[in-house]
Each structure stands twice: as structure tokens, then as C-alpha cells.
């Protein structure tokens, strides 16, 4: 009876920890886009910028109360469901990072995290291929009149370009992040998160080794690529595809995209804290403050980088990704040494 009570109390404590961590993550994540845009980008650009609560907190609330129209999409319901699916995937990544979930075995491993991140990336492909906005082919403009060029060419929506770019990003763009994730794996000789954390509790954080420091730089560049932030914003660059996959989102579905972005920043920061500092996200551990600090610092550094960068086309993108990936491989080699 005593044992059963203990088990139930443990389960309840774990449940409280998971829910509490999720609440903290959500509460912090809604401010991150505001910190990025207000405190860094706006300051660098010598302008007032939006209120800190606006991009991540007030904007989603505003969008929730906007009228939802049917998007220009062959499958509007699926298209509208994708941001929510994306948000759920990101939440699951955070769940698997929590120490209370390490009993799940293989799901609490770096392979599962990488897999879920890949699924999150694939969502952009689906979004792009399902969006058919009025801003390109659907524009009521007499293109194919007599005298027009190449009237027989296959006509492509600008979101389809985004889809192709999303595919390329899946193929090579996120390499740096995933390579960087395997630096702690190489050092701990295990793909399981609990082993990686245990290794760091014994030997100190991976970040403070040569391999870990290089890996952290590579991870940060990969983080920027995964966030589609300047200069790696080719999937949604204003110069051609505009918002790309998000073009047709409105109302609460757009709110989900905003929330997902903020949450993804927090989750990737938590992943960094777990893999490179050995501090998993846990509300009952003071280390959560480190996770929050990392979650604040990441968008700050990202905003500094993006404020001073033009958008990269693939001409610049390929060499940067290749060089960063090579650096990541070197970090893994250094980790084995």
C-alpha cells in the first residue's frame, strides 16, 4: 500500500512537473519574438519597434478573434490544420526533453528529437504545396494574351517555389543543427538523453570543451536556418516568395504559426541546454532558469546576426552550410578524440 501511494505521488509530481514546464515554456515563448524584434532589431535599426508583447503575445490574441475565411487551397481544412500539427510536434519535442519522460526509452533519444524536427520541417513543404494565393497565378491579370511570351509554360505559384526551397532545406539546410547535436552524442557515446545528461553531470558541460564550443557555434547557425531567420530566410524571402508557406493563413491559424515560432525558439534553446549544458527543462529544477536564459539569449544573438545580414540566395547558402557542416564534423571528430 505504501509503495502504491509512493508511486501515485511520484506520478502526480511528474505530471505536475511536465505540465508546469509546458506552462513556463509557453509563458516564456510568447515574449521571445518581442524580445528579438523590440530589444535588438529595432534598437540596431534605430527605431522604436513594436511593443514587446506584440509579436508573440498580442498578435496571436488579435488573430484568434479575426474572422476566418477559407484559404485559397485545394485542401483548405488540411492546410489550416498544419500549423496546429506543427505546434503539437514542437510540444512533443519539449516533452521528450523533460527528465520525467525518459522512461519512454527510444523516444527520449536524440534520434526521436531529430525525427520530430524533420517532421516539423516537412510541414512547410505541405503548407507551401497547399497554398494557392492570389498573388501569383490566381491574380486576375491578362497574362496569356496574344503576343505574350511562352504561353504554353507550366504556371507555378510562388508558394511552390517555397515548397522546393523547404525540400532543399530538409535535404541540406538543417545539416549543421543535426551534426551539432551529435557532438554530445559522440562524447557521451550514447544517443539517449538521460545518458548524455548523466555524462555531463559527471564530466561537466559539453559546451566547455573544444568540441562542444565548436558544436555550439554550428548548432546556433543551424538554429537560425531552422528558424528561417535572415540571412537564411530564403523560404519566405520578401524579394520573391513573400511569406511563402504562410501566405494564406489568417485568423486563428495564423495565430498558431506565431505561437509555434515562439515555442520552437524555446524548444531549440531547451535542446541546446539539454545537449550542451546537461540541463533538461524541468520546473522543479533551478536549472530551468538557465534554460530560460538560453531561450532569451538565442533570439537576441539571432536578431543581431539577422539585422546585419542580407538574405542569402543558394549561391551563398550552399557554401555557408557546407562550411558549417564541415566545422560540425570536425567538432564530432574532436569529440571522439
Amino acid at each position, binding site marked *: 500500500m505504501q509503495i502504491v501511494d509512493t508511486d501515485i505521488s511520484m506520478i502526480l509530481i511528474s505530471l505536475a512537473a511536465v505540465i508546469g514546464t509546458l506552462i513556463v515554456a509557453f509563458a516564456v515563448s510568447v515574449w521571445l519574438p518581442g524580445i528579438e524584434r523590440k530589444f535588438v532589431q529595432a534598437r540596431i535599426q534605430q527605431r522604436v519597434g513594436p511593443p514587446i508583447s506584440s509579436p508573440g503575445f498580442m498578435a496571436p490574441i488579435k488573430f484568434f478573434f479575426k474572422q476566418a475565411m477559407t484559404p485559397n487551397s485545394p485542401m483548405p481544412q488540411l492546410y489550416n490544420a498544419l500549423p496546429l500539427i506543427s505546434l503539437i510536434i514542437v510540444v512533443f519535442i519539449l516533452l521528450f526533453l523533460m527528465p520525467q519522460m525518459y522512461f519512454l526509452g527510444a523516444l527520449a533519444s536524440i534520434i526521436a528529437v531529430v525525427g520530430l524536427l524533420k517532421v516539423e520541417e516537412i510541414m512547410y513543404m505541405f503548407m507551401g504545396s497547399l497554398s494557392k494565393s492570389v498573388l501569383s497565378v490566381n491574380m486576375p491579370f491578362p497574362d496569356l494574351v496574344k503576343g505574350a511570351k511562352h504561353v504554353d509554360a507550366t504556371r507555378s505559384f510562388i508558394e511552390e517555389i517555397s515548397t522546393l526551397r523547404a525540400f532543399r532545406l530538409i535535404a541540406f539546410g538543417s545539416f549543421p543543427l543535426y551534426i551539432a547535436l551529435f557532438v554530445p552524442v559522440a562524447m557521451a557515446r550514447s544517443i539517449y538523453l538521460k545518458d548524455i545528461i548523466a555524462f555531463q553531470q559527471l564530466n561537466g558541460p559539453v559546451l566547455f570543451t573544444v568540441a562542444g564550443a565548436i558544436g555550439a557555434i554550428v548548432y546556433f547557425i543551424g538554429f537560425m536556418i531552422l528558424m528561417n531567420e*535572415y540571412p537564411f530566410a530564403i523560404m519566405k524571402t520578401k524579394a520573391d516568395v513573400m511569406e511563402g508557406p504562410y501566405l494564406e493563413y489568417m485568423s486563428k491559424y495564423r495565430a498558431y504559426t506565431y505561437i509555434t515560432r515562439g515555442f520552437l525558439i524555446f524548444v531549440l534553446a531547451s535542446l541546446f541546454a539539454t545537449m550542451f549544458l546537461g540541463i533538461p527543462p524541468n520546473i522543479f529544477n533551478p536549472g530551468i532558469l538557465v534554460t530560460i536564459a538560453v531561450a532569451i539569449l538565442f533570439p537576441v544573438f539571432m536578431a543581431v546576426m539577422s539585422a546585419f545580414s542580407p538574405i542569402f*540566395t543558394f549561391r551563398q547558402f550552399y557554401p555557408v552550410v557546407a562550411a558549417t557542416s564541415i566545422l560540425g564534423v570536425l567538432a564530432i571528430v574532436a569529440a571522439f578524440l
Partner: protein
Amino acid sequence: MDNNNKITTQVIETEVPMGTVHSAALEPYRLRLFVEDEIVRDAELTIGVNHRGIERIMEGLPVEKANSLTEKVCGICSNSHIWNSCLVAEKGLEIDVPPRAEYIRIIMEELERLHSHLLYLAHGSEVLGHETFSMRLFYIRETVMELLRMIGGNRVQYGASIIGGVRPRCELNEMRIQKIKEGMDYIEEKVLEFADRFIRDPMVMSRISGIGAITKADARRLATTGPTLRATGIEVDLRRDMEQYEPFEFDVITQDTGDVKANLLMRVLEIPESIKIIRQAIKDLPEGKITNRSWEMQDTGIIRSYIEVPRGKLYHSYKIEDGRLRNSIIRTPSITNINTMEFACIGTHITDAQLAVVQCDPCFTCTDRAIQIVDHPFRKNRII
């Protein structure tokens, strides 16, 4: 398109249409890009959605009224239009413009060139994805806008030129002259700082070097005009031939490569030249009246006038009948640069295509003044 401006029969894989509403475009235009693996193989740029028909509205209006209407052609080079329109009337009616008025017109024109070039650089930076450059350039431009507001009373349409001179409100007193001097010092310092930062930025240079390159031969073939022409190395500047600019010393800036980098640098380097002209105009500003009102309206034949505006050659022509304007034609520089914009896109990545269009400094507000004729006896909804 081949070298003889003939459409080739190449098979195009995919077409990506953009516009007429697009975040990279300040104005409405339709850009069809014919791409293979995101590389542009051909392009088609179409305008004609801006049904304002200003020339048609001008038809039959009193000349002074019609002149002030030309200012509404464009929000960026409004002074250029009204100045050229007044020059047409002055040429036809043989009106002598007081030297002081000529100098004030030159100051206004060069201030407008400054704000146009700064806008171009800011917009180019925005399309490049460099928001910080863009914001800071807009801050620098704000000084010019305030100077224009101080002289003309408005930030966009100043209405400085009238037939026979400039409006009394545009008279330059000591306070205004001092403000212009201070403004020029500030702009020169800031633009040179920007240029230094711009040229030293390897990321920016890698994005703009070799993109949308136009050779001298292509520029001649495509009837390119203005700074876009000079960026290819052809030293043509109509200000050299304009009698209004005779008292001033300035260099005609040219570049060699004709790409986005050359075009951006063209504008950066033309800014100090404009500042130089403004300083000379202020220093040598003649005394006397600013308006010659001793002229009489009479009928004229068709009079033509060309001037060099921030984007190239601007043409105005009309004739006067009973004090009213007839047969008005306005040809803006961007209409001749459309072919160049299309050509510059070819061979670039899709993301660079808008940059290649922007490098030619399109001003479709100037250019696109179509009118829609409804219930035409032979054709319905005809756009001309």
C-alpha cells in the same frame, strides 16, 4: 529574347508570375519569370493597371493648371515633371526665367535627386533583405524631405516651378540657406559612412556582384537611360547639355560592370555630385526677383523638352491653343528601361530577379498612366 530583340523559341519549363501586388515592388507591375531550377531564362514585365490617364485629364485645361497636374504624375520626381512642363511653356512662349529662379529650380531638382537616390538605395537594401541599411537610409533621406518641405511647403509635391520662375513661397532666405548647408553636410557625412560600410560588407557584396549585369552593347540596344546606362560605362548625362546646368561644375559618374553593385554605387557616388551642385547654387545664388510675370499667352505649335531626372531622360511635349493645353505627351525614363529590367533578370536566381528589376530604379507610378476607354464603338474596355 535574342540580340535582335526577337523572341526566341526556347522551351520554357516553368513560369512564375509575380505581382501586381508584391512585397518587393513599391508599385504595381506584373513580372512573369520563366525559370528552370530557379534560374530565370526569360522574363516579361507588364504594366497597365494604373488607370490615371493624366495626359487625358490635362487635355484642354489652362496651361498653368495642367502644369500643376503634371506634378501628380509621380510622387518621387514630382518637381522634375512640373519643371519640365514649365520649360515646355517657357520655350514655346519665349519667356525669360530670372537667374535666381533658375538656381532655386536647380536646388529643388538636386534635392529631389538626393531623395530619389536615397529612396532607391533604401528600397534596394530592402529587396536585398538588409533591413538595417534600409532603415538607416530612410533616416538620412528624412533630412532631404524636411528640406524640401521647408522650401516647398510639402514633402512630396512642392509646386516650386511655375511658368516664368518659382513660387514666392520657395524664396530662399538666410535661414533656409543655412538649413540647406547644414543638411548637405549631414547627408554627405552619413552617405559616405554608409558607402564605406556597404562596400566593406562581404555578405552584401556577394549578393550584388555580377547580378543582373548589362553590357554597354546591351544598354545601347535596349535604349537604357539614366544612371542605369551610366552604370554600364557610357558617359551620358543630359545635365551636361542643359543650359540651366552650365554654371555648375560636377562630374558625370560612371561604372563599368552594369550589375546591381554598379547601379547601387552609381547612386551612392552621384549623391556627393548633387550636393556639390547644391552648394555651388547656394554660394552663387543671384540676387533679384524669382518670377517673371511679364509674358503673354499665345498659341504655339508642339513644343518639346528633355531634362535629366533621377532616373534618366524625361520628355514632355504639348501645344497651346487659346491658353489651353493640347496633345500632351509625357515619356518617363522607366518606360525605356522596361526592356532593360526584363533583360537584367535573365540568368539570375529568382530571388535576384526582383533585385535586377529594382537596380534599374523603376518608377511605374511615373510610367503607368493608362486610360481605360469603356463603351468604345469598336472595342470594349480598351486600355491605351
